[in-house]
């Protein structure tokens, strides 16, 4: 595709439920990032992958959050036992590894609402 694709664009769930958010990066981009943007705030780093492995997951808030990228392309962010405080826009971005450091190509985001 032409850009980073994220699905679903909107997700409404109930407290305690399990949620999966999907990201399809730009073809050929080996680095993939997840950010979370709460209302009125800038994006906050969660995790990034180089290939299949998580190179840095220091931004994951707790062990309810987990992300995978099994084949080095599509990534899934998984949130267990959702809480109201998890409500946010989850942004995915990709880039070429080692090139144009800091230039990330973002998706449109998945807006998660936990009732």
């Amino acid at each position, binding site marked *: 595709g032409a850009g980073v694709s994220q699905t679903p664009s909107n997700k409404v769930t109930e407290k305690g439920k399990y949620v999966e958010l999907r990201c399809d990066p730009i073809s050929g981009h080996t680095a993939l990032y997840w950010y979370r943007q709460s209302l009125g705030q*800038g994006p906050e780093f969660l995790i990034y992958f180089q290939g299949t492995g998580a190179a840095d997951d220091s931004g994951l808030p707790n062990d309810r959050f987990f992300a995978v990228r099994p084949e080095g392309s599509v990534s899934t962010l998984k949130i267990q036992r959702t809480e109201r405080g998890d409500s946010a826009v989850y942004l995915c971005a990709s880039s070429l590894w080692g090139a144009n450091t800091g230039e990330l190509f973002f998706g449109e985001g998945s807006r998660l609402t936990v009732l």
Partner: protein
Amino acid sequence: AQRVTQPEKLLSVFKGAPVELKCNYSYSGSPELFWYVQYSRQRLQLLLRHISRESIKGFTADLNKGETSFHLKKPFAQEEDSAMYYCALHKAGGTSYGKLTFGQGTILTVHP
């Protein structure tokens, strides 16, 4: 830990007026600074980076290490500049590629 501060949540100017969006950072090392922009109904995208020393859409930004600032400036604002602007910091070196620290953002509105 590094921090990026954008003191203005909202900034309004008239078309043709100069505009300056402020960004201050705190980081003990050598940072790389960026401005990202999000236009209405569009995705977040890179506007410019300090290492390129470039002018994009008439915007420039100079890294001032003494004042730890990276203000974004444009001499004559246009209506199409209306957007949300984020300042972001990246720790140079190491393996933290793409791990950016963003400010809270400034909504710029350019009135006709």
